[in-house]
């Protein structure tokens, strides 16, 4: 059974002049222990997806329809108090900026012990021991001393390790990591990604990794979901999506990324920009920028269709005789 199932999720932000649809009919699932990457450009709805799952949508944002199931149990309609018990215990969260996700007025030990004792029936002393072992697992040197330090006494990379330790504190089955390495330098990013992958495997946690960096996705994830304008454009095994993208948007995105291993005179560019939420075109949201748009694309919205090893929301895959053109 899937650990997490997201079914036809719609997230809306009511607004003075109408309603903005930030997520529109998004469905996917995560298996136990799996790492699912979620990519997309700014405003595609990556973070909203994460926030909806952990029940931290900022009002007036709300889940307008659809379901979120954690181990077969609906969690999308739970009240704040019930959700608070699930968060931390069954779903852990890691955010982008480790400085703002830690309380500057408490030592990291106090924060870890508080989290552990909220969710697990442990004594102060046992919780303290567990905190030290978590810090050791996340590669913090001399955890016995460091536990009494305040967040400002740690560097950015070390802080993110503390945040990972916090997320793992109550042994959650799922961790939602929203851009966990974006604020870090590339050498630290490599350390954190390796760590996240390692400790989640060791603790048996599945990860939903939200990022805009395809390189991070390629190296870390088992499967990847590509979002565009609040809709799922493509989902499939990471190797397939990167090497044989089935959606023209994914293909364009891959070709736009400069490659460190080869020289190219010009980068492939996708002309135009992602539509604003109040002006999403009818039919497929990508059709105005799509080099292969058909007449059908302008009026009918495509469902996720099987395309080889992946699934893509693109009419090109309705008719098997049409093939995707490789971008130059």
């Amino acid at each position, binding site marked *: 059974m899937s650990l997490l199932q997201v079914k036809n999720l719609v997230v809306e932000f009511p607004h003075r002049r109408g309603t903005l649809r930030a997520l529109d009919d998004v469905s996917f699932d995560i298996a136990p222990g799996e790492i699912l990457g979620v990519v997309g450009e700014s405003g595609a709805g990556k973070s909203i997806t994460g926030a909806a799952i952990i029940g931290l949508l900022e009002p007036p944002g709300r889940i307008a329809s659809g379901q979120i199931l954690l181990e077969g149990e609906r969690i999308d309609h739970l009240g704040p108090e019930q959700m608070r018990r699930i968060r931390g215990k069954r779903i852990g969260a890691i955010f982008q900026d480790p400085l703002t996700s830690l309380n500057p007025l408490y030592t990291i030990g106090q924060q870890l012990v508080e989290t552990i004792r909220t969710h697990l029936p442990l004594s102060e002393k046992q919780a303290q021991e567990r905190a030290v072992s978590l810090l050791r697992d996340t590669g913090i040197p001399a955890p016995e001393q460091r536990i009494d330090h305040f967040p400002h006494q740690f560097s950015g990379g*070390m802080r993110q390790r503390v945040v990972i330790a916090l997320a793992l504190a109550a042994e959650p089955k799922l961790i939602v990591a929203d851009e966990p390495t974006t604020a870090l330098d590339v*050498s630290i990013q490599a350390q954190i990604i390796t760590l996240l992958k390692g400790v989640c495997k060791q603790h048996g946690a599945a990860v939903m990794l939200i990022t805009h960096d395809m390189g991070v996705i390629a*190296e870390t994830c088992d499967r990847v979901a590509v979002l565009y304008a609040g809709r799922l454009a493509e989902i499939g095994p*990471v190797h397939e999506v990167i090497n044989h993208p089935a959606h023209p948007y994914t293909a*364009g995105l891959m070709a*736009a990324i*400069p*490659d460190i291993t080869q020289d190219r005179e010009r980068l492939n560019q996708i002309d135009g920009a992602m539509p604003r939420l109040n002006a999403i075109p009818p039919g497929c949201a990508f059709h105005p920028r799509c080099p292969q748009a058909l007449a059908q694309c302008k009026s009918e919205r495509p469902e996720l269709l099987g395309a080889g090893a992946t699934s893509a929301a693109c009419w090109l895959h309705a008719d098997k005789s049409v093939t995707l053109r490789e971008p130059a």
Partner: protein
Amino acid sequence: MTALVQANDLAMTFDVSAPWLNRLIERRPRTLLRAVDGVSFEIEKGKTLALVGESGCGKSTVARLLVGLHEPSRGNLVFDGLDAHAIFKTPAGLKLRSRIQMIFQDPYASLNPRWLVQDIVAEPLIEHGLVSDPAELRARVGVLLSDVGLSPLDSFKYPHQFSGGQRQRISIARALATQPEFLVCDEPTSALDVSVQAQVLNIMKDLQRKLGLTYLFISHNLAVVRHVSDQVGVMYLGRLVELADKQALFGSPRHPYTRMLIDAIPKMTDTGRARTPVQGEVPNPLNPPLGCAFNPRCPHANERCRSERPNLLALAGIRIACHAVEEGRI
């Protein structure tokens, strides 16, 4: 051919001491931060030098030195045969400044939200006294906007009406207004999404070809650097550790730090690759390690690396500051 831009031993030291009274009472000495410590390079006309490195390595301070936003504590900048920082102080400085322009990282912060695009792009033209006739000014702004792929009609909009990529094009149009020869670009695409980054990088390359521009391109993204540059300088804690042609640097990186940086980048081709990243972090620049600044993280460090600071030496077509490479140990 002589270089258009020549930096000789540029250094910038910031005084980050505690206030005078604290120093007096607590008997603390002055604290100096050596943000840039003896950086030399030259850029030929029409070429691109990229500077890479992690946060705090002094990349942006070099950029600010080159455009005259800081005055160097040591060393000088020779631009087209002229000592730039000496001339910046004289009345002729304005003319020289119009030949060197800068593009900043965040197009949301670098454009005044209360100005029309017309005023933003025209400001350098007015400031440098290049155009005063309103009709001509409008025409020039229109041409500049068309050059970067926007419409002349966009000049009567405000910055918030544009997306990030379009705003960065407005910044480029503004930087090009005085017809500069040298553009200093400080992380021009870091705030942009990849598909938009591709648009901006393509425009920058097209403009370089068309106008013969010389770029100093600062980035922490090595893949972008490989795409735009001719030469690459790698910085670590205020110093250049390796300076080489793009082909040499990416083909056979020599400095252990360069190798680490290239290896640390997640690559699209290695799905599921497991690796052992280099441990450790960039040391505190207020208290840099003795000898080579990279020695605490370097797998090849020996006694000499821990005590003697390596100088940037010319070696087989590249310039490198590493004892291990110099001695042939790696």
